C-alpha cells in the first residue's frame, strides 16, 4: 500500500537531489534502495516513518547545502568578475580617454600656436607693408623686404617648432625661413630681385585685382625665370653662415600662394614635404592692404606634427597601445609608432591613409573602424569599442573627434585588451571553472558527510526500535512465562482437588464389603495410580515452587535416621538386579530427632541416591552421615580444611544474628549435619562439578538417552539444601564414581533423646559374624560393631562362612573328625581365637540369603549344614524383598526366625541384637515392633519375625507396588485357615478391619504364583506333612518374580514355548455352548497338554460326570479314586441347564463320592451379584469373558495343583 507512494516520493526526491549534485545522485539512490530493502524485511510500518524522517532530513540538509553553495558560487562569481570588470572598464576608459586627450590637446595647442604665429606674422606684415605701401624705388622695396625678413626672422626664431614661414608677395617675391629638424639647419630662401621690378608689379597687381584668380601659383611657377636662393642661417642669430645656393623653385618648400587662400580666409591643410617624413600642418593667411581690398601678400606657416607623434610615443611607452591621429578624410597625421606616415611615391611623399598604414595594428584598427562604421560614424565621431577583434586579439578602440574649424581631426587609440583586462579575462574563465568545480566538490563532500553522519542517526534509530521491540518481546516472554507458571500452579492446584476426591472415594470404596476380589484388586490398582498421579502433581507444583523460589520449609520433628533408612530400603530394591549395594552409614552422634522439613530432606537424598543408582552399574552407593556441632569443636580426623568454612560461615551467621540466634541456639541446638553420597558409577567430569547443579544440565547429554531424567534433580537439591542453610558440592574421591558432600543446618530440640547405649551389647558378650555379599556394607557394619565393642568376623562367601564356623566351633569342641577342607588366614584365626576367649558368648550370624545357592537345590543342604550350629548360634537372615515365601517358610521351618530385608544398617542390626538378646532371655515369640504382621490369632502358624521397613509416601508408584505387594504378600501369610472348611485361600490382610474373610474365591491378582506358594506354605503351617517339597513342584514359582505382570506372563508363554506343557495330564471338562469359544478354549487347553472334553450345555456336563461315576461303581470304601476330570470349565449361560444349575447338580453328586472337582465359571457378567451366585452354587473360581487364556491357565494350575493331594 505504501509502495507506489514510496516510489513516487523517491523519484521526486531523486530529481530534487540530483539538481544540486552532479555525480552523487545515482549512487545515493541505490544506497537508499538497499536501505529500503533491509527496512522492508523488518517490520515495515514501524521503521517506515523513522526511515522517512531520516530520509527527509537528509534530503533537506542536502538541498540547503546545495542552495547555499550555489548562492556562494554565484555571488563570488558575480562579485569577483563583474565589479572587477566594471571598475577596470571604467578605469580603462578613463585611461584611454586621457591618453587620447593628450595628443589631441597637443595638436590643438600646436594648431593654436601656429595660428597665433600666423596671425602675428600677418599683422606685422600688414603693418610693415602698409608703411611701405607705395614703394617708389627699388631701395624702398629692398628696405621693405629687409624689414619683412627681420620681423619674420624674429617670429621664426622665437618659435623653434615652426618648420617654415613663407611670405609670398603679390609681385612674386618670395621670402621664407625654413628649418630642417632632421639636420637642424635653418635656411633663408628668397627669390631673385632682378626679375621683380616695382614697375611691373603694379600692372600685375592691377591684373590681379581684376581677377583674383589671376594671382596663382602658376604664375609663379610658370615663371621659369625666377631663381631662388637659399642661404643657411645660424639658428640662433640669423646670420648668414653659408653661401646662398640656387635652388629650383618650389622644390624644397611649398610656398603658399594665393590659391591657398581663395576666399581670403585663412586655410589650413596638411602638407607634405621632402624634407620631413611626417605630414606638415600648413596654414596660409592673406595679408590685406590698408584698405582691405586686395591681398598684397600671403603668409604661410608650416609646422611639423612631430611633437604630437613624440608625445604619442611617450604615452604609448608608458601605457602601451597605439594612438594615431588622422584628418577627417583619414590621412594619418601622427602615430605612436615608428611606421612611416608618408607614402613614398614617384612624385614625392604623399599622405597615407590610416587604413594603409604600415603598422599592422593601426591598419587593422582603421580597417575595423571602416568596416564597422564605414562612413557612418556615430555623431561626434566618438567610438568606444571594447572588444574589437583585430587579427585574433581583442583591442579597445576609442576614437575622439576634434572638431576644429580649420582642420577637424580624429584621434584613435587602440589598446590591446589584454593589457588592461588581460588578467581579468584570463582569470575569469579560471575562476569560473574553479568556482564551479569547488562548489561541486564541496557539495559532494557535504552530501557524503551528511549521509555518513545521518547514518549514525538512522542506525541509532533502528537500534532503538530494535531495542524497544526486544524489550517488548522480553516483557511478553516474561509475562507469558509468568502466566505459564501461574497457570501451572493453578492447574496443579485445581487438579489436586479432584484427585483428592478420587482418592478419598477410592478409600471409601476399598472399605466396601461387597467388592469382589477382582474388583478390590482393580480398585487398589486405581488407588495406587491415583496416588501416583497425585504425587506427580505435587512434584510438578514443587518444581514450579522451587524454580520460583517460593518454597517454604516446614518445621517439624522427624526421625532422620528412620527416614534415611526407609529411603535406602526403597532404593535397595531397585538395585537388586544391578549388583549395586546400597549402604547406610550414619554415625552414632547424629541426633535422633531433628526439626526440619522431612519431606524435603528425604527428597534431597532421594534425588541424590536415585542419581547414583542411575549411573552406577556395579559397586556400591554409600550414604554417610555425621554431625558437627558448631558449639563444640570436633575432633574427628575426617575434617579437612574446607569443612571449616561452614563452621566459620555459621559462626558469622550467629554473630550477625546476635542474641536472637544465641537464644535460638540455646533453645534448639543447631547442628551441622554432614552427608556424603558416595557411589562407584561413571563419575562426573571435574569441569562439570559446578554446572551439574544448573537447571537442565546433564553432565553428559547422552545420559538422557540412556538413563532418562530431566536434569532438574540436582538443581532442586541444591536449592533445597541452600534453603536449609547448607551447601552441596561434588568433591574429589579416590577411585571411580562420584562423591557428593553436603551439609545441612538443622536444629535439634533441646530435649533430644539420648542415643541408645549400644555399650550394653559389649557387656553381653555378643559376637557377630557377618556373612554378606556386599563388601562395603559389611565393612562399615563390622567397623561400627567393633567400635561399639562387638567383635566381628566377616565372610563374603559360603566357603568362608563354613571355614569360620569350623574354626569357631569345631576347633572348640576339638572334634578333629571333621575334615578341615579349608583353613583360615592368620589374622582371621587370631580374631576367631579372641572371640572364642569370650566368656559365654552369644553368637549371631548375619547371613545374606545370597550366600545360599538358590539356583539349584544345594541351598537346602546348606541350610542343613547350618542347622548343626543352630544350638550355639543365632542366625539372622538377610533377605531380598522379592525372596519367595517358600524359602522363607523353609527357613522358618528350620527354626530361623530372624529375617531381615536387605540392606542391613544400624537400626536393623540393633533390632537383631535386641531380638537375640531378648529371645535369649525370653523364650516366647514376640511380635516385631512394627506390627505389620497379620493377626492370625486363630492359627497356630508361626509368626515369622519379619522386620520390614515402613511404607513411604515418597516412593514411586512402582516401588509402592512392590512394597504393597510385598506387604500384602507377607500380610497374607498370617491368615490361615485350618480345619474342615473347604480349602480355599484368602488373600486379604487380616489386620485390616474392612476385609472380611472370604471362603470361596480365589483372588486372581498378579500374585498368582505367590499365592500358590502361600497356599503351599499354609499347608505347611497347618502342619500337614507333605511328601513333596513345595519347592520344586511349581516351575512357575521359580521364575523370578518381577514387579510387572508382563514379565510374568512372558514367563508363562516362554514356558509354553519351551515345550513344557503346564497342563500336562489334566483332564478338563469344558461346558460351553458358544462354538467359537468352545473351539478356542479346547485348542488352547490342548496346546497346554490338557485333555479336553467339550460339551454344549449343563445337562451334558452333569451327565458326563455321572457317566463316569456310574461306570465306576465302586464300593464306597474306595475313596481315593481320582475323579474323571481334574477341572470343569463351566459357562454360566447355557441352554437347557445353565452353569449354576449344573454346578449345583455336580456338587450334589459329589457329596456321595467325596470328590471336589474344581469348577471354574466362565461368565460374561462381572457383577458382585454374579459372584455371590457362583459362590452359592459351589464354584471355585470364575473367569470373565472374553477370556484371558493365560489367566485361565494359571487358575487351572492353581486349582488343580492344590487339589491334588
Amino acid at each position: 500500500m505504501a509502495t507506489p507512494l514510496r516510489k513516487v516520493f523517491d523519484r521526486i526526491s531523486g530529481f530534487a537531489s540530483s539538481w544540486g549534485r552532479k555525480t552523487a545522485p545515482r549512487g545515493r539512490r541505490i544506497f537508499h534502495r538497499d536501505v529500503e530493502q533491509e527496512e522492508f524485511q523488518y517490520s515495515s510500518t514501524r521503521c517506515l516513518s523513522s526511515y522517512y524522517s531520516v530520509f527527509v532530513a537528509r534530503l533537506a540538509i542536502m538541498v540547503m547545502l546545495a542552495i547555499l553553495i550555489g548562492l556562494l558560487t554565484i555571488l563570488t562569481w558575480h562579485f569577483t568578475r563583474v565589479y572587477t570588470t566594471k571598475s577596470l572598464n571604467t578605469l580603462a576608459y578613463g585611461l584611454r580617454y586621457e591618453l587620447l586627450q593628450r595628443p589631441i590637446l597637443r595638436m590643438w595647442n600646436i594648431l593654436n600656436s601656429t595660428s597665433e604665429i600666423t596671425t602675428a606674422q600677418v599683422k606685422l606684415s600688414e603693418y610693415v607693408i602698409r608703411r611701405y605701401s607705395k614703394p617708389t624705388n627699388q631701395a624702398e622695396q629692398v628696405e621693405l623686404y629687409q624689414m619683412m625678413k627681420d620681423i619674420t626672422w624674429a617670429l621664426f626664431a622665437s618659435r623653434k617648432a615652426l618648420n617654415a614661414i613663407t611670405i609670398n608677395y603679390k609681385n612674386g617675391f618670395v621670402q621664407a625661413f625654413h628649418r630642417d629638424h632632421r639636420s637642424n639647419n635653418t635656411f633663408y630662401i628668397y627669390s631673385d630681385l632682378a626679375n621683380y621690378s616695382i614697375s611691373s608689379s603694379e600692372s600685375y597687381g592691377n591684373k590681379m585685382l581684376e581677377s583674383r584668380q589671376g594671382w596663382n601659383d602658376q604664375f609663379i611657377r610658370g615663371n621659369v625665370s625666377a631663381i631662388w636662393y637659399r642661404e643657411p642661417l645660424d639658428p640662433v642669430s640669423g646670420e648668414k653662415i653659408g653661401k646662398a645656393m640656387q635652388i629650383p623653385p618650389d622644390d624644397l618648400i611649398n610656398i603658399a600662394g594665393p590659391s591657398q587662400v581663395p576666399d581670403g580666409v585663412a586655410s589650413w591643410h596638411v602638407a607634405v614635404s621632402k624634407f620631413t617624413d611626417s605630414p606638415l600642418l600648413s596654414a596660409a593667411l592673406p595679408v590685406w592692404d590698408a584698405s582691405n581690398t586686395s591681398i598684397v601678400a600671403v603668409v604661410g606657416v608650416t609646422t611639423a606634427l612631430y611633437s604630437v607623434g613624440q608625445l604619442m610615443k611617450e604615452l604609448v611607452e608608458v601605457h602601451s597601445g597605439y594612438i594615431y591621429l588622422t584628418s577627417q578624410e583619414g590621412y594619418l597625421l601622427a602615430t605612436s609608432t615608428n611606421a612611416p606616415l608618408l607614402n613614398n611615391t614617384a612624385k614625392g611623399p604623399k599622405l597615407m591613409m590610416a587604413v594603409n598604414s604600415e603598422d599592422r595594428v593601426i591598419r587593422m584598427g582603421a580597417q575595423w573602424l571602416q568596416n564597422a562604421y564605414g562612413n557612418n560614424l556615430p555623431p561626434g565621431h566618438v567610438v568606444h569599442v571594447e572588444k574589437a577583434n583585430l587579427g585574433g586579439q581583442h583591442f579597445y578602440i576609442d576614437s575622439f573627434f576634434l572638431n576644429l574649424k580649420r582642420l577637424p581631426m580624429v584621434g584613435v587609440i587602440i589598446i590591446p585588451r589584454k593589457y588592461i583586462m588581460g588578467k581579468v579575462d584570463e582569470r575569469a574563465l579560471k575562476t569560473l571553472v574553479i568556482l564551479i568545480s569547488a562548489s561541486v566538490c564541496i557539495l559532494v563532500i557535504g552530501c557524503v558527510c551528511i549521509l555518513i553522519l545521518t547514518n549514525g542517526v538512522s542506525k541509532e534509530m533502528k537500534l532503538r526500535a530494535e531495542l524497544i521491540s526486544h524489550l517488548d518481546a522480553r516483557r511478553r516472554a516474561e509475562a507469558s512465562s509468568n502466566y505459564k507458571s501461574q497457570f501451572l500452579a493453578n492447574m496443579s492446584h485445581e487438579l489436586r482437588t479432584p484427585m483428592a476426591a478420587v482418592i478419598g472415594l477410592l478409600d471409601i470404596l476399598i472399605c466396601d464389603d461387597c467388592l469382589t476380589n477382582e474388583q478390590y484388586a482393580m480398585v487398589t490398582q486405581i488407588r495406587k495410580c491415583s496416588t501416583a498421579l497425585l504425587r506427580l502433581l505435587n512434584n510438578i507444583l514443587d518444581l514450579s515452587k522451587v524454580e520460583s523460589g517460593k518454597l517454604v520449609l516446614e518445621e517439624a520433628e522427624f526421625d532422620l535416621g528412620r527416614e534415611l533408612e526407609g529411603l535406602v530400603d526403597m532404593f535397595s530394591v531397585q538395585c537388586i538386579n544391578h549388583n549395586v549395594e546400597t549402604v547406610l552409614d550414619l554415625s552414632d552422634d547424629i541426633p535422633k530427632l531433628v526439626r526440619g522439613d522431612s519431606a524435603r530432606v528425604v527428597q534431597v537424598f532421594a534425588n541424590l541416591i536415585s542419581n547414583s543408582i542411575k549411573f552406577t552399574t556395579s559397586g556400591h552407593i554409600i550414604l554417610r552421615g555425621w554431625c558437627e556441632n558448631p558449639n563444640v569443636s570436633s575432633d574427628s580426623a575426617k575434617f579437612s580444611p574446607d569443612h571449616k568454612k561452614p563452621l566459620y560461615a555459621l559462626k558469622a551467621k550467629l554473630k550477625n544474628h546476635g542474641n536472637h540466634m544465641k537464644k535460638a541456639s540455646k533453645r534448639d541446638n543447631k547442628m551441622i549435619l554432614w552427608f556424603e553420597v558416595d557411589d562407584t558409577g561413571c563419575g562426573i567430569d571435574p569441569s562439570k562439578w559446578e554446572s551439574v547443579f544448573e537447571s537442565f544440565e546433564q553432565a553428559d547429554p547422552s545420559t538422557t538417552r540412556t538413563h532418562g531424567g530431566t536434569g532438574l534433580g540436582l538443581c532442586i537439591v541444591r536449592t533445597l539444601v541452600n534453603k536449609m542453610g547448607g551447601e552441596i558440592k561434588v568433591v574429589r574421591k579416590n577411585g571411580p564414581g562420584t562423591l557428593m558432600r553436603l551439609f545441612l543446618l538443622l536444629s535439634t530440640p533441646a530435649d533430644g533423646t539420648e542415643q541408645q547405649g549400644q555399650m550394653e551389647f559389649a557387656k553381653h558378650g555378643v559376637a557377630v559374624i557377618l556373612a554378606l555379599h556386599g563388601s562395603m556394607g559389611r565393612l562399615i557394619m563390622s567397623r561400627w560393631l567393633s567400635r561399639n565393642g562387638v567383635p566381628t568376623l566377616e565372610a563374603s562367601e559360603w566357603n568362608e562362612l563354613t571355614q569360620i564356623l569350623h574354626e569357631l566351633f569345631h576347633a572348640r569342641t576339638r572334634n578333629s573328625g571333621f575334615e578341615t577342607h579349608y583353613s583360615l588366614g592368620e589374622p582371621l584365626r587370631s580374631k576367631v581365637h579372641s572371640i572364642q576367649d569370650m566368656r559365654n558368648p552369644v553368637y549371631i550370624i548375619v547371613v545374606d540369603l545370597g550366600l545360599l545357592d538358590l539356583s539349584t537345590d544345594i541351598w537346602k543342604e546348606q541350610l542343613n549344614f547350618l542347622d548343626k550350629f543352630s544350638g550355639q548360634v543365632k542366625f539372622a537372615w538377610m533377605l531380598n524383598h522379592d525372596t519367595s515365601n517358600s524359602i522363607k517358610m523353609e527357613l522358618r521351618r528350620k527354626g530361623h526366625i530372624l529375617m531381615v530385608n536387605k540392606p542391613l544398617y544400624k537400626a536393623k542390626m540393633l533390632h537383631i541384637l535386641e531380638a537375640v538378646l531378648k529371645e535369649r532371655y525370653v523364650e516366647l515369640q514376640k511380635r516385631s515392633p512394627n506390627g505389620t504382621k497379620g493377626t492370625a490369632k486363630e492359627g497356630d502358624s508361626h509368626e515369622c519375625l519379619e522386620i520390614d521397613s515402613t511404607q513411604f509416601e515418597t516412593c514411586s508408584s512402582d516401588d509402592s507396588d512392590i512394597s504393597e505387594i510385598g506387604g500384602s504378600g507377607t500380610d497374607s501369610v498370617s491368615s490361615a485357615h485350618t480345619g474342615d472348611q473347604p480349602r480355599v485361600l484368602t488373600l486379604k490382610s487380616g489386620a485390616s478391619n474392612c476385609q472380611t474373610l472370604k471362603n470361596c474365591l480365589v483372588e486372581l491378582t498378579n500374585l498368582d504364583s505367590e499365592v500358590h506358594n502361600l497356599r503351599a506354605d499354609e499347608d505347611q503351617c497347618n502342619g500337614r506333612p507333605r511328601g513333596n517339597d513345595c519347592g520344586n513342584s511349581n516351575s512357575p514359582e521359580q521364575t523370578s518374580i518381577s514387579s510387572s505382570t508382563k514379565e510374568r506372563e512372558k514367563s508363562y508363554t516362554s514356558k509354553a514355548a519351551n515345550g513344557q506343557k503346564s497342563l500336562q495330564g489334566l483332564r478338563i471338562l469344558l461346558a460351553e455352548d458358544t462354538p467359537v469359544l468352545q473351539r478356542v478354549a479346547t485348542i488352547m487347553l490342548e496346546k497346554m497338554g490338557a485333555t479336553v472334553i467339550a460339551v454344549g450345555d449343563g445337562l451334558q456336563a452333569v451327565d458326563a460326570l455321572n457317566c463316569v461315576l456310574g461306570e465306576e461303581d465302586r464300593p464306597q470304601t474306595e475313596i481315593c479314586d481320582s475323579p474323571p476330570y481334574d477341572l470343569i470349565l463351566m459357562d454360566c449361560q447355557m441352554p437347557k441347564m445353565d452353569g449354576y444349575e449344573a454346578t449345583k447338580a455336580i456338587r450334589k453328586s459329589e457329596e456321595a463320592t467325596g470328590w471336589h472337582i474344581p469348577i471354574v465359571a466362565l461368565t460374561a457378567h462381572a457383577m458382585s451379584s454374579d459372584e455371590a451366585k457362583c459362590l452359592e452354587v459351589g464354584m471355585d473360581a470364575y473367569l470373565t469373558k472374553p477370556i484371558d487364556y493365560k489367566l485361565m491357565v494359571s487358575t487351572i494350575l492353581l486349582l488343580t495343583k492344590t487339589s491334588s493331594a
Partner: protein
Amino acid sequence: MDVVQLQRQLVDYKASLYNEAILDEQFTQLQELQDENNPDFVVEVVSLFFEDSERLLNELTKALEQQNIDFKRVDAHVHQLKGSSSSIGAQRVQKVCIAFRNCCEEQNVQGCLICLQQVKNEYSLVKTKLETMFKLEQQILAAGGSIPV
C-alpha cells in the same frame, strides 16, 4: 507382487484392523494359539464364528419379526453372539451386542431392530475384513512366504 510386498501389505492391513477397533487383543491371543500342531486354528475358529453368527443372526431376524417378541430368546441369542464375538476379538460386534442386550432388557422393539441392523452391518464388515485378510495370507503362502506375526 512379490512376497515381501504382500507381507507388508498384510501387516499394514492387520494394523488397520486393530486401529479401527474391528479386532482387539483377543484375536491376537487366538493367533498366538496357532502353531504347527494347529496350523489352521485361526481360520477354523473364524469360520466357526461366521457360521455361528449367521445362524444367530437368522434366528434373531426371525425372532424379531414375530408379533410377540420373545425377548428372552432374543437376549439369549444376543448373549451367544456377544460371547462368540468377544472371544475372537470382534470388538465392534461385541459392543453392538451389549447395546442390543440393553434394548432387550428394556423390551424396546425399535431399538432392537436398529441394533439388529447394526449388528448385521458390523458382522458383515468384520467378515469381509477377515476374509480379505485370509486371502492375503493365502497369497503369501502361495508365493512361498511365511505369514508375518
